[in-house]
């Protein structure tokens, strides 16, 4: 308070009697300061509101203009491309806000459309020189400019010096890292996952969802052999590779998957079981049954799922005595699967479970 007090508030205190004690003077000064701030914020709120409204109006106007010209450009055969597009560029693509909205709108169109029209949109992007703006943004030190620029460039399939992008794979901001990954996939002609060898942090599920999506929908080269990453140092990468082997039906990699049933990481073992299941590798059931007892609870559950999917009631029976008395979650699963195999005995299996419950509790 001493600091504040040393600022000259004499003029304020001049309104009050001269000989006020320190505490009271301090109170008056504090009240004054708080009120000034409050009024300041009220003013700020109102200004912000006016500014936002103004900006939103601008945005909406620009957006509507763009919608019209983009639709005409894509679908109207009589549209005079050369003249109209140049005119639009001269009149409506001068300020950064206008350019940003144009980029956003083209990306939005592009995300909903494929084929010839999508190619046309990418041509337009270059014709309006929006790529220049993005490249400048990429060089900007703010992470959100970088990641946005990466996103726009990759969507529009615009090549930049890969050496500039590589370091961004390990950028400290998640968003930049993710956009860099996607850039590599979308622009790759082959080997889209080469970047996986260069990342220094585990992949998150979130990133994996986007990578998978990009591989499916935006990468058009030959599908990579995912077994290349089954021995990566990153368990998350191994995990992802296992899942992709199943997703893209790489049956030829089944033999590569089998040793991973012994992997030290629980998650990797589970994913391996799931993928073998999805690839309908029936032979794995015996191995799973023999490994059951040594496994962790989560892997045991996955094994039960696998038996439901690939096995038979007889396979399931083999596990009955391997489930411990206190493993209730496994028991429930066990009986549930038994009901699935023998739907006509649903009720008697339920009674059996209830009996076992009564016996043990």
């Amino acid at each position, binding site marked *: 308070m001493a600091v504040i007090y040393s600022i000259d508030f004499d003029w304020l205190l001049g309104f009050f009697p001269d000989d006020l004690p320190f505490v009271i003077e301090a109170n008056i000064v504090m009240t004054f300061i708080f009120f000034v701030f409050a009024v300041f914020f009220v003013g700020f709120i109102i200004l912000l509101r006016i500014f936002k409204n103004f900006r939103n109006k601008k945005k909406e106007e620009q957006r509507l203009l763009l*919608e019209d010209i983009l*639709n*005409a450009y*894509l*679908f*109207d055969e009589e549209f005079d491309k050369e003249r109209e597009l140049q005119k639009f560029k001269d009149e409506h693509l001068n300020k950064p806000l206008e350019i940003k909205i144009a980029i956003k709108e083209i990306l*939005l*169109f*592009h*995300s*909903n*459309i*494929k*084929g*010839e*029209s*999508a190619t046309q949109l990418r041509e337009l992007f270059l014709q309006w020189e929006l790529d220049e703006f993005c490249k400048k943004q990429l060089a900007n030190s703010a992470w959100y400019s970088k990641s946005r620029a990466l996103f726009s460039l990759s969507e529009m399939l615009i090549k930049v010096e890969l050496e500039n992008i590589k370091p961004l794979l390990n950028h400290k901001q998640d968003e930049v890292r993710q956009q860099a990954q996607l850039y590599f996939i979308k622009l790759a002609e082959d080997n889209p996952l080469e970047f996986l060898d260069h990342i220094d942090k585990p992949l998150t599920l979130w990133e994996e969802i986007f990578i998978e999506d990009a591989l*499916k*929908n935006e990468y058009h080269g030959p599908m990579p052999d995912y077994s290349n990453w089954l021995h990566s140092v990153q368990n998350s990468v191994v995990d992802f590779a296992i899942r992709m082997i199943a997703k893209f039906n790489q049956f030829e990699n089944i033999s590569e998957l089998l040793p991973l049933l012994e992997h030290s990481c629980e998650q990797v073992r589970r994913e391996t079981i799931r993928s073998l299941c999805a690839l309908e590798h029936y032979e794995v059931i015996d191995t799973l049954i023999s490994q059951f007892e040594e496994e962790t609870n989560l892997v045991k559950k996955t094994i039960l799922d696998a038996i439901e999917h690939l096995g038979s009631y007889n396979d399931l029976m083999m596990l009955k005595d391997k489930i411990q008395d206190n493993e209730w979650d496994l028991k429930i699963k066990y009986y549930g699967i038994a009901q699935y195999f023998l739907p006509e005995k649903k009720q008697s299996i339920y009674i059996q479970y209830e009996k076992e419950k009564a016996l043990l509790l």
Partner: protein
Amino acid sequence: MKKILVIEDNPMVIKSLQFKLTKDGYDVIIAPDGREALKLLKDATYDLILTDLNLPFVTGNELIAYVKENLPAIPIIVLSTSTQENIIMDAFNMGVEDFITKPFSPNELSLRVKRLLS
């Protein structure tokens, strides 16, 4: 003029579809959600329905079920972001005539519409 009912909640897609299909010479009527669509279907007849699956209020599946039961003559094209097999299978099992995944090619869509309406 053939009438197409477009049920879609993405304004950008609506506008493009409207533009493209109007150019192709159809009368395009828009319903932004499933409930609105049901209302429109009760009041007038249409030659084709183009619908999304993830719709507010009334889902695409409910809508399809309604049309197939009450207005079986109207062909349905689903336009959806879903690429999951089971969702596509479900739609065909319910009797839709065609399934187009987003992102879509407007030219292809236009051809498929033409095929169903000729």
